[in-house]
């Protein structure tokens, strides 16, 4: 019985606790029946050969255990997988660009040899890998949540062929694109709330290089508004994703969300700078005090101005875009009402 005992024990290891002992008990009972019958019929030479044949036919314990579990058993299903792949590609590409910029900035600043540049690149790669793994974890989490929130309804549901979208329907939502948008919004929500120190840049000063967070305490003043905008955007896009197309109501809600974004940009542009690297943090993380002071002054002199200009331009662009959007929406609403 030794092999049978070991087999049953091994199957149990792959089963959830809730059904484990019951399945194991039944499996033992049926295996004993089967074994007894085979031995009585003399189908195999001896008890051990019979056990071996029986267990080989049953298959690997993990496979047998898997067939007891209900479907589906995946975090991200085939419907969302292309979106997941695309999101990861976008994130990893953006991260790779940051890494490359770090190396290029070093090359320009230091004019170092190929070998020292290689050393910098290898050093930065460590940070890249850690950040990439964090992003992978968050993106998988976000997609797993979307997967569970958006299980397709019964495929035999009634539908009207007249509801099929026009071929050139501007309101139609691309499932993959919308999935990516949802994931990026979810990723942003998780990052700004749980990993704000991951918003920063790869920095190389002299021999030292590494990741330095960019956000200062002023960022926390805007966090509630950012959460509101991201949260509403996420909910709205989830609804649109489920409906499959933009409708007049969701377009108006999108407009309202855009207004919150504009207000957010306005507060960023007119309030104290959110870009404020912390020299003390850098020193605590192994940077020399000279390197920390030089980086902080570099950011304060150059980047803060750039960010403010960028915010100002972004605000103007958002206002123009919003004005065009509101005209189109009013036109569309009036056309539907008349």
């Amino acid at each position: 019985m030794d092999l049978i005992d070991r087999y049953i024990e091994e199957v149990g290891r792959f089963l959830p606790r809730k059904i484990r002992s019951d399945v194991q008990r039944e499996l033992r009972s049926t295996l004993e029946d089967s074994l007894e019958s085979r031995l009585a019929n003399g189908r195999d030479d001896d008890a051990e050969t019979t056990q071996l044949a029986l267990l080989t036919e049953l298959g690997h314990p993990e496979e047998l255990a898997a067939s007891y579990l209900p479907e589906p058993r995946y975090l991200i299903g085939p419907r969302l997988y292309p979106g997941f792949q695309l999101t990861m590609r976008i994130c990893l590409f953006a991260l790779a660009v940051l890494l490359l910029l770090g190396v290029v900035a070093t090359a320009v600043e230091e004019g170092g040899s190929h070998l020292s540049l290689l050393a910098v690149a290898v050093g930065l790669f460590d940070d890249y890998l850690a950040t990439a793994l964090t992003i992978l974890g968050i993106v998988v989490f976000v997609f797993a949540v979307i997967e569970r929130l958006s299980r397709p309804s019964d495929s035999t549901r009634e539908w009207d062929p007249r509801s099929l979208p026009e071929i050139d329907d501007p309101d139609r939502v691309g499932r993959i694109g919308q999935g990516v948008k949802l994931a990026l919004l979810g990723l942003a929500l998780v990052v700004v709330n749980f990993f704000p120190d991951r918003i920063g840049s790869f920095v190389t000063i002299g021999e030292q290089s590494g990741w330095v967070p960019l956000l200062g305490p002023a960022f926390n003043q805007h966090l509630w508004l950012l959460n509101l905008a991201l949260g509403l955007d996420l909910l709205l896009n989830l609804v649109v994703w489920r409906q499959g197309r933009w409708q007049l109501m969701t377009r108006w809600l999108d407009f309202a969300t855009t207004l919150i974004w504009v207000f957010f940009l306005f507060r960023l542009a007119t309030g104290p700078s959110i870009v404020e690297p912390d020299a003390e943090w850098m020193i605590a993380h192994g940077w020399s005090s000279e390197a920390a002071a030089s980086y902080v002054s570099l950011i304060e002199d150059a980047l803060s101005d750039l960010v403010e200009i960028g915010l100002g331009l972004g605000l103007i662009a958002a206002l123009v875009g919003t004005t065009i959007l509101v005209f189109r929406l009013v036109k569309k609403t009036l056309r539907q009402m008349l």
Partner: protein
Amino acid sequence: MTPKTKDPAENLTLELRRGLIVLAILARLEEERYGYALREELLGQGLEVPEGTLYPLLRRLESQGLLESRWQTGEGRPRRYYRTSPRGREALEAMSREWRSLVEVLERLLPES
């Protein structure tokens, strides 16, 4: 379970059998049986169902409400007995009707061997 073979004909035959096994189980379990006895019964009628397929399938049909089960722990080996539930009988009737109609149609469609 994903078939391991890459031969399309073999895969398709397995797919075809899979649905029919459910029909056979529901029909045979109108009379209460335990797993091994059911397997022997089906085998006796010419339908061989691998044990690794049959026992998990009985559980899944039970979780779908098509079968009912109980443990019998009197004298001898404790055994789990299954029987077709009222919902299972409805499914059996619908599947049987479909099967008979399909056989009739396919008899006309298939080339004579």
